[in-house]
């Protein structure tokens, strides 16, 4: 994903994911932030509060009493035409769930920094994707980061994507709890002026504060209009695909790091592939390199955008594969595989020539995944391709 450095002015600094995201928030200087602390996302607004205390931002920071109120206040502020941000994790996102649907339904371009963490019970503070997968159909765009750099870049792009008049949908910028949020990495920050120029001013079409032109937000739809309004959200999601790519490319032109739906790692001639999201993609790259040394034509498809789901692009990206494994850091508990597996299977089903697909549910509650684990996943794939093994959802790294 990272191409070449076009701008020498970029700073190389050591930042955790949370610090990098907070830094992006400072540079964006949103109109309103409403947030409630939760591990491991707490730091984001904590650091942001420090910026506020030092006068580095002049955001209105609403220190709400819950995540439900955080999202509710974000919706109010967004409907008033403000550029709005929040951050949360796990149970916090679940508590927001009701209002997440309202945020997208009312077409509020809110940006949420989401630090992926397991859901209770048992209570666990470590990484998996159960929290964001539980709200995957809430009408929010979901972008996942492999590392702190991507979390930073994604957050900046998210503002543009959300506020695009063709989209007007909220965006969740996801990063793996602790692994990214608390891992210290070298990050290249942009200059404040570059960020501000890139995001530009927010130009809402409507505002509750336009008292000369009063609008009613959140009216009741009966059977005569509800369906059309929901259909429009689906249409906006479709249009978001173009906007996500356009913004990702523009980011690349400006700053040398371009983004799309996927990052393909050694996929050009790959026969066996893994599709994964988040920090695991970094681990999988190591496995790919090792397997290549051993002669396997292995490749990795890192999915960056889960909502909207890039169906056509997935079909094209997996065309050359004989077999692939879908890695899910969440379980649907449907006994029919993880959420990403189900999406991938649905997307490829209508294709005449498609790879055999396996599913691994892994890393729940922060259970570590190693390059060695991933090598084993790849080594199963030739058997699957040859029909020696039947595809079925399985669990990786758990004591059965």
């Amino acid at each position, binding site marked *: 994903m990272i191409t070449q450095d076009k701008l020498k002015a970029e700073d190389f600094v050591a930042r955790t994911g949370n610090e990098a995201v907070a830094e992006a928030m400072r540079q964006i200087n949103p109109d309103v932030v409403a947030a409630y602390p939760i591990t491991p996302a707490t730091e984001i607004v904590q650091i942001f509060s420090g910026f506020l205390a030092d006068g580095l931002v002049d955001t209105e920071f609403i220190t709400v*009493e819950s995540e439900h109120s955080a999202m509710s206040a974000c*919706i*109010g502020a*967004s*409907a008033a035409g403000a550029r709005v941000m929040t951050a949360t994790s796990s149970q916090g996102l679940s508590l927001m769930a009701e209002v997440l649907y309202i945020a997208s339904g009312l077409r509020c371009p809110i940006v949420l920094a989401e630090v992926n963490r397991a859901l209770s019970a048992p209570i666990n503070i470590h990484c998996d994707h159960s929290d964001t997968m539980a709200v995957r159909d809430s009408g929010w765009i979901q972008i996942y980061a492999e590392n702190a750099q991507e979390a930073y870049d994604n957050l900046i792009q998210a503002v543009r994507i959300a506020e695009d008049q063709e989209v007007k949908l909220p965006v969740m910028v996801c990063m793996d709890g602790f692994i990214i949020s608390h891992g210290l990495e070298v990050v290249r920050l942009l200059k404040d002026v570059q960020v501000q120029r890139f995001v530009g001013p927010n130009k809402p079409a409507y505002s509750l*504060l336009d008292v000369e032109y*009063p609008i009613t937000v959140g009216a009741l739809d*009966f059977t005569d209009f509800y369906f059309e309004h929901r259909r429009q959200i689906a249409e906006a999601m479709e249009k978001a695909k173009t906007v996500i790519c356009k913004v990702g490319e523009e980011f690349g032109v400006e700053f040398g790091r371009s983004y799309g739906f996927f990052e393909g790692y050694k996929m050009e001639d790959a026969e066996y592939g893994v599709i994964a999201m988040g920090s695991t993609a970094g681990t999988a790259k190591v496995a790919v390199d090792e397997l290549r040394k051993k002669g396997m034509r292995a490749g990795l498809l890192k999915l960056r955008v889960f909502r909207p789901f890039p169906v056509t692009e997935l079909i094209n990206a997996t065309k050359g594969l004989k077999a692939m494994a879908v890695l899910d850091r969440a379980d649907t508990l449907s006994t029919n595989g993880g959420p990403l597996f189900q999406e991938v299977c649905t997307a490829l089903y209508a294709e005449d020539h498609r790879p055999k697909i396996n599913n691994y549910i892994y890393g729940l509650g922060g259970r570590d995944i190693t390059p060695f684990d991933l090598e084993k996943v790849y080594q199963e794939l030739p058997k699957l391709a040859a029909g020696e093994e039947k595809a079925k959802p399985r669990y990786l790294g758990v004591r059965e």
Partner: protein
Amino acid sequence: MKLQELTEKPDLFTGGHRACAGCGFPILIRLVMSVVDTPVVVGAATGCLSVTTALYPYSSWRVPFIHNAFENAAATISGVEAAYCTFKRRGRLNTEIRFIAFGGDGGTYDIGLQSLSGTMERGHRILYICYDNGAYANTGIQRSSATPRGANTTTTPVGKKSYGKIRPRKNLTYIMADHGIPYVAQAAISHWRDLMTKTKKALETEGPSFINVMAPCRLSWGNNPQETVDLVEEAVNSCCWPLFEVENGKWRLNFKPKTKTPYHHWLRRQTRFRHLFHPTENEELIQDLQAEVDRNWEELLSRCQ
């Protein structure tokens, strides 16, 4: 405030809404909106108010209006107010705007209490008005924590072993006063001048304010539409719904009836209490309810000294 002047003010809340004939809250909204003399943004909790006044593609609101969900009217309007503060500070807006949120007793006493408490504690300049009809009227008259003791509701139905709601109502106005916010009041749609004065005071308050207003649901109370206002007046006269305010910590009684009418007079006029009188009168309970009203009234008087 002269009646003549009020009739000449433009209606910011128009007719054509779907509220029942004899419903309390449209009366309340019209009174509140007639006091408003700066632009306002109105928020509302899910409930009869939101579903009868904003039905796509129609709206009764000639001011900006937002409905979000059931339990978050306060948090939502606090977000709107925060956006306003930023815009003012950043020079993107010069107009003086006030913010009002409406919620029923379900959305205020119960499911929305946390959101309301948080909003008030944070000090947003918002007026929150509860239209208290003593039940979840919109979903078909279930009990709320504002339902008076003895009332027949669909979740506290009268039966062989039940006389209706067993628990007394929660005193939300006191709870809000205990937040230490600059202005808290209790009002009633029957005492329109008092209600309008309180609204005006609240809107002029530099900080959070809360007004709890008795506004009946005639379907759950079981009165004729034309009796709605009169029934509220009777409640005030019985002292079960006193009119008072707490201004910067100072408690003040706004109305003392010349003659305190017996509580059962008010109860008798409502079908939700019919079982207390028919087929036989539950004298013991009625006396108990009267004692409760008296006790609360005396306690309020001591606060207002």
